[in-house]
């Protein structure tokens, strides 16, 4: 018990006061955290998706609108750069595509089974302003 971390307990276990160091969870990024099997982070909702977002890095301006408005913590932003999409937690709502301000959009929704490389190769061109 003395050496057990706060997230290693079974649900329903009775806990006493902790004497040890408290983890600075707000300063630890997802990839450095030791998640317990009871965190929903280890689960996946990928099978909810009908459409998936595909990210075209070339057009991205790192405005982070998609990061702040993603309801599922699925936009991975590191060092102020958008680096990709967490496909385990994305539910395919499409908010990121709606809020993307670039022209052409750097995020677009495609059928769940479409191939990323094919779609990236035929990405829509810049739309002229009317």
């Amino acid at each position, binding site marked *: 018990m003395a050496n057990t971390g706060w997230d290693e307990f079974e*649900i329903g276990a009775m806990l006493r*006061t*902790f*004497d040890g160091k*408290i983890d600075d*969870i*707000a*300063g*630890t*990024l*997802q990839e450095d*955290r030791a998640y317990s*099997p*009871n*965190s*929903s*982070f*280890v*689960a*996946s*909702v990928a099978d*909810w998706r009908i459409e998936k977002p595909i990210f075209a890095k070339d057009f991205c301006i*790192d*405005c*982070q*609108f998609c*990061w*702040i*408005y*993603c*309801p*599922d*913590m*699925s936009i991975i*932003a*590191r*060092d*102020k750069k958008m680096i990709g999409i*967490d496909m*385990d*937690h994305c*539910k*395919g*709502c*499409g*908010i990121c*595509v*709606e*809020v993307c301000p670039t022209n052409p959009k750097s995020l677009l*929704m495609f059928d769940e089974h479409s191939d990323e490389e094919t779609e990236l190769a035929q990405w829509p061109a810049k739309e002229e302003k009317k």
Partner: protein
Amino acid sequence: MSEMKKIKNLKEFSTSADRFEGANLLCPGCAHSIIVREVLNATNDDLVLSASTGCLEVCTAVYPYTSWDASWIHIGFENGSTAVAGAEAMYNALKKKGRLKQPDRNPKFVSFAGDGASYDIGFQWISGCMERGHNMMHVVLDNEVYANTGGQRSSSTPIGSSSTTAPSGRISYGEKKNKKDMVSIMAAHQIPYSAQVAPNKWKDMVKKIQYGMQVEGPVFINAVSPCTTEWKFDPKDTMLLTDLSTDSLVFPLYEIIDNHELNITYRPKNIVPVEEYLAAQGRFKHLFKDEYKYLIKEWQERVDAQWDYLNRREEARV
């Protein structure tokens, strides 16, 4: 007042490490988790959280999973705010007795609840927390309906909205009573801070949350949370609906400090007609029939009157 995390722009904000995890069971496009993220990421301090029964609670704590990387408690529908108030009282007592292991840590006490749990069921409990002056924050995720149990009307449901217990049809146009002005009711408890926020105006929201966390005493925050299931719009349009709600002034963004200083924090450049806000949602579809068109006019008049009232109150400093 303690030092708060510095957030100058969105790029800086995006370096935050989320303490709310994915693979929760909220609907795709749900605004609840956008609001929760903005609140949680506004600080790097420890958090003591609670959630009253509602979408947020049932979707983030499904056995055996939890989506919270912070201390989190759920008890009942009505007493989420009281649970946090109790934790805050306990914290203060232990601090006074010198029994805290790490007294330099500065935890923030936040309770989340839906509009049903705040406007109706938990009303007297929140009122009690505000009256007793606990150093806590209560955040309402206001989607104007009991979305978790299938869309029953709450006292936050606005006129003309069709819900399962106030449906529209041949005889009725749906909900007949106007929404309760909860921000003013809570401000009337003489609390230091009471505000209305929207997730699309993230900077305004983070500023208000940080002010609320710094200030001593109870804080009430009402956040508009468009519900794709009960407001009946496409999941991808959540942010569009939030934009419409703030730009049409149906949800004006303002704050009330010490119940006498009202500040309007967002003035839309182009005010959108309320009709556009109503037209974007399936729950107001029947208002566009000829016999109910007068209700849209009434809506616009009501929203204008409210905006006028806020402006006059801001000027008068009362």
